[in-house]
């Protein structure tokens, strides 16, 4: 099993963060923190800016004000690819031209330093990919194209891909939306197990109170 990857002392902290989308202010002066190794749920109705906030934390968009701290360091101006905050997209965003294994390995091959890239070459990458796909129950689907996956399988691959480069924090944008009830419940249990097992600092966007209580040790409400 993967060892805990985050710093339990600090985790993720938002300091008076403001978010706008298409010129419209969505969030103003929001502050909260996610303790290292714990999971926090971000609750709120549709359109309140939950996904926009995740995009800002991940570095896809810039905040209109405030700071983002990761393990005590200000990462507000850190480029997205150097921020080490993973994001599992609501619609997965699996790379359609790559296999399941290549999707999961993608982040490993982008390691920030040359030494790290070298260390993730060849068999070590394959082992890590296999380990993660086993964790999400898809070890036998490594060579499949992602286009043939079911909705639940695609979400599992997206989760494995997000975990692969051992991010300091992982953001999950409604990871259980769009699944049928049985699959939703099974994946929710798996997700809780995986996040606990990997000791990942996680922020989960959801509009489902039950989901939030099951997965998270703390909640933040927007709107």
């Amino acid at each position, binding site marked *: 099993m993967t060892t805990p990857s985050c710093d339990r002392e600090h985790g993720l902290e938002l300091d008076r963060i403001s978010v706008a989308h298409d010129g419209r202010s969505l969030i103003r002066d929001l502050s909260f923190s996610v303790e290292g190794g714990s999971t926090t749920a971000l609750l709120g109705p549709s359109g309140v800016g939950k996904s926009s906030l995740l995009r800002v934390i*991940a570095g896809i968009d810039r905040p209109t004000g405030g700071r983002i701290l990761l393990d005590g360091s200000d990462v507000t101006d850190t480029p*997205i690819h150097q921020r080490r905050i993973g994001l599992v997209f609501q619609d997965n965003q699996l790379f359609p031209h790559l296999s399941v294994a290549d999707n999961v390995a993608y982040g490993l091959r982008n390691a920030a330093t040359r030494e790290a890239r070298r260390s993730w070459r060849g068999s070590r990458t394959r082992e890590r990919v296999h380990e993660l796909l086993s964790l999400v129950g898809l070890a036998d689907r490594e060579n499949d194209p992602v286009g043939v996956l079911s909705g639940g399988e695609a979400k599992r691959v997206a989760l494995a891909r997000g975990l692969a480069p051992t991010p300091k924090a992982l953001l999950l944008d409604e990871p259980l939306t769009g699944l049928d009830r049985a699959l939703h419940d099974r994946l929710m249990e798996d997700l809780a197990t995986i996040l606990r097992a990997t000791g990942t600092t996680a922020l989960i966007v959801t509009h489902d109170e039950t989901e939030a209580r099951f997965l998270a040790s703390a909640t933040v409400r927007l709107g």
Partner: protein
Amino acid sequence: MPSSADLSRTGRVRLLAVPGLVMVLALVLVPVLALGARTFDSASLFGVWSRPGIVDAIGFTIVETILSTAVTIALGLAPAWALSHHSMPGHRFALAVTTVPFMLPTVVVGAAFLGLLPGSVERGLVAVVIAHAYFNVAVVIRTVAPVWATIDPMLVSAARNLGASRTRAFVSITLPLLKPALYSATAIVGFMCATSYGVVRMLGGGNATLEVEVYRRAILFGDIAGASTLAVVQLLVAAICLLVWTGKDRVVFTNAGHRSRRRDHPVARVVAVIATVVTVIPLVALVLSSMRSRGHWTLAGWRLLTSGSNVPGLRLDLIDVLSRSLLFAVIAAAIAVPIGIATSTVSSSRSTILDRVLLLPLGASAVAVGLGIVITYDSSPFDFRSSWWLTPVVHAVVALPFVIRVIQPVHSRIPEHLRSAAATLGASPLRVWATIDVPLISGAIRTAFGLSLAISLGEFGATSFLTRNDTDTLPIAVEQLLGRSGDLARLAGHAVAVVLLLATLIALAFTTRSRHSWSAS
């Protein structure tokens, strides 16, 4: 199981394809086969390759094709990216303007660059490559931009979130997803450059592509056997290239739902503005060079066209040539569009073989067709070489595949239940066609008409074999005037090119007006 009435009706509907088939067979397939027969009969089948100029033409064709294609793809990527941003202000205008060069007559593009480029490079390889890039960047934009627009920007964000730099995200995500579109663009541009005729006649200087060499052998040297051999070899090479291309996996990952998610980008605006300005500059240079000689403004070229001249070799009546070109264009459109409508009615519902036969004029080089017609229809009762009507009819054949390509997709998307509904309300098949089909494809018909006019006005390859002094068209006049020495001829040549440019733009206006017409999706 279809009833006998259904079968009878199907048989009658198939008859609609006959006029188109006859035209393509008579004016493309038979002439090309005649060329092949001439080559087969010729003792020079193998000996032709040692004749002076042929190896040079092959070498120049290969070099200019590789260079032109590489430059075109490289220059086309930035505007393709910029114009994939649908939310950008002026997006449609920029797309329309940057597409115009591909629709322009090759001689207009040639004349524009003769007016724009400095004397040291205005004729030769550099000029040919620049003109080809100008002409074909639209292909890259039109092929790549729609695919780029459907690549969800979030995929790139996902890659960046997983640690990829901008460059790596482009190379590992965007480029592989664009690959099928890039293959297509490369194949089309390569084909266009390899079979280039008008641009090389105008700007090649002493160089010739195989197409130009076919013309030179046939018309200047009287070496019909050598010209036929070259034309057939080129047709075979082109056919092989097209077969290889069509055999490639051209599956493109697209998701039209992602289009609206692409956001405006300031750099995209700048690139789009630059692409638009760069597209317009040669055309402005063309207009200016028709009025400027040795650093002074002059209307001598325009006066020569409007009031005539006694200078030997410069006798040209603009009104006469313009009215003839317009007449030919209208005749060509009047033939191509009804046949295209009739053919689309058949081919939208069945027979891919029919489609392929009707698309033959796209693959066959216009020069080969022109030469084939000259050597095929040269004896009574089929000696049509001096018949004035041959030129507009050949223009119609050249335009036919484009007409079908415009009308057929729109026609095939008309929901069958609309026709059924009309029939249940008592409409006969003819009335269903007139009241349902025709109104719904009227926009496509207007587009096809404008496109036919533009193609006929600019057609140069086959026309250069078919016209005589008293049947010259505007492109022939441009090439003849700009091929002569002297300022007056150059000024007049540019002036005729300006007239041809304006006539073509007016014809193309038909194609833009019809954008608002119905199109089922």
